[in-house]
């Protein structure tokens, strides 16, 4: 598969934006400017961006709390997302749901998730079921984690998707830890993708820090699903480089493990390849980072000046009219 220069430039932008936005959120949290908890996506950029960029404009995604890059790549703006983190009226949930939770916009093909992961997985399956029934050439892309893979619902959803041969691709982000519990304490078998065989679908283990591998494999799975060949389970192996949430210093993670993953940072790997391909140099890199900082400054200013939700509308919208 060829990677066009345009695609790689886009991917570079989204991944760097994601990393910089994540860093800014960390800073804003420490300044007391965000509401509630904060989940870093650091280390997940190649998965969220690589997978989301494999979709067409009419496809849909059900991302979760470490898929910030997927929200961006689907068109959610930094200003809206920053508003969401600050609990402002201008966020996708208008201050009603927390951080990336409930950060949905069907016009962008994004479904907001609930904390009960993997509750979005059957929803992706249902959207794919609708595409099949309506004969629409669209695909649903679902994300869940190693933690979520232990829920019974994953069995129900994978079985359902395979039974009806639905156009859905499952990305399982195996980042080694469900909160404090390492995968070896969650499951006997090391590869979640191996379960795919039991459902009669393709299962692939991917280096989740390698944008090229994630994107290429997802693209293939998406196009096969679109063509009627049914679902696939893609396991992206990565490492959660921060605590479960910002309060968590992850003292339970061996220092050596983090040290082992540090040089495999998805952005470093990606940019090394870009330089090898003569698509990136220091000038371009600085330009990009400066541009992104300016965009995030603008998003922050927008959100800080945005109105708070109106308490007089507290009970509005519990039902659709």
């Amino acid at each position, binding site marked *: 598969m060829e990677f066009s220069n345009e695609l790689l430039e886009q991917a570079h932008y989204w991944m760097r934006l994601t990393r910089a936005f994540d860093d800014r959120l960390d800073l804003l949290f420490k300044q007391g400017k965000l509401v509630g908890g904060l989940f870093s996506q650091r280390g997940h950029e190649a998965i969220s961006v690589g997978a989301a960029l494999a979709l067409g404009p009419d496809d849909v995604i059900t991302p979760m709390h470490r898929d910030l890059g997927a929200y961006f790549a689907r068109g959610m703006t930094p200003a809206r997302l920053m508003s969401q983190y600050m609990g402002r009226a201008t966020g996708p*949930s208008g201050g009603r749901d927390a951080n990336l939770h409930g950060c949905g916009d069907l016009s962008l093909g994004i479904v*907001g998730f609930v904390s009960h992961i993997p509750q979005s997985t059957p*929803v992706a399956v249902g959207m794919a079921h609708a595409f099949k029934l309506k004969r629409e050439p669209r695909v649903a892309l679902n994300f869940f984690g190693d933690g979520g893979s232990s829920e019974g619902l994953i069995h129900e959803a994978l079985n359902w998707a395979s039974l009806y041969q639905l156009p859905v691709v499952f990305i399982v982000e195996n980042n080694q830890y469900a909160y404090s519990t390492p995968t070896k304490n969650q499951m006997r078998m090391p590869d979640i993708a191996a379960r795919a065989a039991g459902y009669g679908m393709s299962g692939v283990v991917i280096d989740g820090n390698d944008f090229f591998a994630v994107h290429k494999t997802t693209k293939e799975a998406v196009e096969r699903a679109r063509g009627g060949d049914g679902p696939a389970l893609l396991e992206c192996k990565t490492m959660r480089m921060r605590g479960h949430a910002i309060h968590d210093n992850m003292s339970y993670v061996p220092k050596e493990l983090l040290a082992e993953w540090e040089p495999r940072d998805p952005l470093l790997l990606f940019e090394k390849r870009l330089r090898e391909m003569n698509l990136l140099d220091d000038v371009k890199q600085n330009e990009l980072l400066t541009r992104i900082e300016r965009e995030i400054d603008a998003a922050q200013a927008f959100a800080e000046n945005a109105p708070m939700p109106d308490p007089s509308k507290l009970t509005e919208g*519990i039902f659709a009219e």
Partner: protein
Amino acid sequence: MTWDSIIPRETKNEISRSARNDIAREDNARELTYLEAIRDALQYEMRRDPRGLVMGEDVGVFGGAFKLTQGLFEEFGEERVIDTPMSELCMVGAATGMAFMGLRPVVEMQFADFISTGFDSIVQFAATNHYRWGAPVPWVIRAPSGGGLRGGPFHSQNPEAWFVHAPGLKVVAPATPADARGLLLSALRDPNPVIYFEYKALYRSIRGNVPEGEEGIVPIGRAKTARAGNDLSIITYGAPLHEALKAADELARENVSVEILDLRSLKPLDTDAILETARKTSKVMIVHEANLTCGVGAEIAALISQHAFEFLDAPIVRLAAPDIPPPYAPILEDASRPNKEKILQAAKKLLAY
């Protein structure tokens, strides 16, 4: 043996005159059983709206555990009448996804008891979605509910209170064939998730006139005075309505005039109708088949106490199942469910207060 085969096909219970007369006979009305009225609504709406589909366990080829969906598979095919695996949690989640993409799914829980296996998909995801980020979730879950069939603890439950308590769901519980059709049509056209409780004991034991076409659509949230009276109000819903009507017929022979309010919708509740009947008769009995504690009756009693206290001549009485799982042996099940005799007994005590 299917569950269908243990439901009496012949109408053994004498249907109260008031139940028969509660729908004006119109030119376009037919007499249908409660079950036929539900099927009629599904069929009518699926013919009218190509987005409609039915899914559940054994609903297709087999026609459903109660044969309620019989004939739909033949008419609409396997893509619109979907036999699913035993996966309620995924079924409801999938319905949400289908609803997002413009379909109008109806999920049949084979028994209302099994709805708990789909709980997260209902109360966490679907129910909260519109409030959280504005995307409507237009689906209906049909939940065959209630006892009387000797089904034991896991085929007899009335779990409506769980869903009335969960913000973002509409909950309906029709008791007559006309309301069964009329409320299902409203539910199918509502942009919100609706839990539709239907009563297995009524499937073939209750018949009534049922309008056709666009006639007889019953808005969600509107109670109905099933019988007008002055001395005592019975507020009820679902299967016990018919026990209340029979009790009222008997009390009428003793010159006691009972008003019966059939709630029909449990969320939203018709607060105005509840307060109106309480103010009118000053004596209120609430009857439901679900167990007592934190049941729908508790909310109704609280509403009346708060807003119509000065009109009351007696404490509000709640008649419900005790706080036990529905028992199996007929003598135990009968002892646990509200019936005509228990209503009469409680009514006489209340009238004498």
